[in-house]
């Protein structure tokens, strides 16, 4: 039987651009160029490798996001995923992790899955908790923050390098996995891949398709509120000296003045 892999990918504002908040204090996704979150490329890569090892596998990439989020799906398709699902609905604007995870859970169930693979964190929200919440909602094992992952005989195995120990983990499918940027460089889409992606199916679902009420998601349905946002004051210009042979001593002088020595 075919292994059904769903990869959750997010479309995020470019980290090297001028990221900021919109007037309603949500992340501004219109003004700043977006892209497939770099950390989700690792998830796509591991899905492709797992699919290669499996007799028969199908990779669906899934995103919840605005219209432009299709770019992220296209990129994942050009890397080699088979098809894509775009959950798009005006009611989703301003969803927090609880809203987004609800939508992803319903979408993953509707798509059908044996294995869900996510990135370790989104580069804009950077919470890094969505995969755990998704596992909780789906009632399946969470095998997260893996720097190494493999699937064999309906069992997913991986290595999680934690703060105090490195652990080997094992769970039966279906399961939710997330992979870190230590899991292995993501491939670049080939020309052939880019051409092929244009023909791959991208379906769009809205909240109604998923049976989710408008009050469960979006800014109004969020379980957290942002009251205010402030740009951190630019750090005041410091002293910069060129080393003419005494740079280390000058620095020690500075540190002593600040009572660090």
């Amino acid at each position, binding site marked *: 039987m075919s292994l059904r892999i769903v990869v959750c990918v997010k479309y995020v504002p470019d980290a090297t651009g001028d990221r900021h908040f919109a007037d309603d204090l949500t992340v501004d996704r219109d003004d700043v160029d977006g892209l497939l979150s770099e950390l989700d490329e690792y998830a796509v890569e591991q899905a492709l490798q797992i699919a290669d090892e499996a007799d028969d596998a199908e990779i669906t990439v899934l995103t919840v996001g605005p219209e432009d989020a299709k770019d992220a799906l296209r990129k994942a398709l050009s890397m080699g995923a088979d098809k894509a699902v775009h959950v798009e609905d005006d009611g989703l604007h301003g969803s927090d992790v609880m809203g987004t995870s609800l939508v992803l859970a319903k979408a993953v169930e509707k798509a059908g899955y044996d294995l869900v693979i996510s990135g370790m964190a989104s580069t804009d929200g950077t919470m*890094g908790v969505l995969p755990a919440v998704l596992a909780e909602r789906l009632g399946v094992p969470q095998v*997260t923050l893996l720097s190494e992952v493999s699937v064999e005989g309906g069992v997913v195995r991986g290595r999680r390098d934690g703060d105090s120990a490195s652990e080997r983990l094992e769970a039966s499918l279906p399961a939710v996995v997330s992979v870190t940027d230590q899991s292995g460089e993501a491939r670049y889409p080939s020309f052939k891949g880019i051409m092929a992606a244009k023909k791959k199916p991208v379906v769009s679902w809205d909240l109604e398709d998923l049976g989710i009420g408008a009050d469960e998601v979006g800014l109004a349905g969020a*379980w957290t509120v942002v*009251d205010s946002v402030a740009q951190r004051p630019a750090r005041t210009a410091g002293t910069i000296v060129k080393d003419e042979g005494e*740079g280390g*001593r000058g620095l020690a002088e500075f540190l002593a003045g600040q009572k*660090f020595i």
Partner: protein
Amino acid sequence: MAEVLVFVDHVDGAVRKPTLELLTLARRVGEPVALAVGAGAAGTAGVLAEHGAVRVLTVDAPEFAEYLVVPKVDALQAAYEAVSPVAVLVPSSAEGKEVAARLAVRIGSGVITDAVDLEAGEGGLVATQSAFAASFTTRSRVSRGTPVITVKPNSAPVEAAVAAGAVEALEVSFSAQATGTRVTARTPRESTGRPELTEAAIVVSGGRGVNGAENFHLIETLADALGAAVGASRAAVDAGWYPHSSQVGQTGKSVSPQLYIASGISGAIQHRAGMQTSKTIVAINKDAEAPIFDLVDYGVVGDLFQVVPQLTEEVNARKG
């Protein structure tokens, strides 16, 4: 008085510093009740009581070590139900965040991660967070349910505050999911003898400019002279010069020490994301145009192979 539930991070009973910082924050809103799970849990009570815990709930079972995350969620939920707290605070480690977020879904509450400050506000507990590589600061609240908030290390001082710290055994019945993900092997991280990266008052980091694993001793000896932790950029980690556990930045550790010294690091946005909130920033880089210099309080444009050993020597001489 209202109680605040604090999830304890400890290693075999030795409580880690961020937990004590949480007790300081918890006391701003109510009386801290601590929950310690796993081997050595009961041994945490003494130090928790010295820092304000009125009660210490403890539970140990093989499940905590043998399975990933969910047994801890079950325990935190049991504690939540036993205490009915006004807030739940959890240290912002990778695991802590996962435990907190899963609890939040179960109890129908919003969750805020990586807070750097907390205070009581009119509409409830207000959390300060950093956004977009720490170029913005936000203030947010949980608007539904009991606030579940994870707090980063170095967000509050550790304060002595003697309280009863009465130890109570907590009953936990594990959920069906608790045994879903088995831990089949565990290799503890070797201690370097240096301070924990996320907790250190001083961090000395090296990047691609260090140019080889064999040169990292320059960074280490400076760190040791200052009593500091050692950090590394992703370029240095990817090159295999230093372990990933020492990586500072978006996909490594986020640090906020009193002093951060970057040597041979350019200051890419992803690196800045993990160190930009340090109090004092110092950089040594031979390229005067390196973006790291936009952040520094003091920068030396020069060759780190000259500057770092001279600095180390001078630090040792002054201590001497």
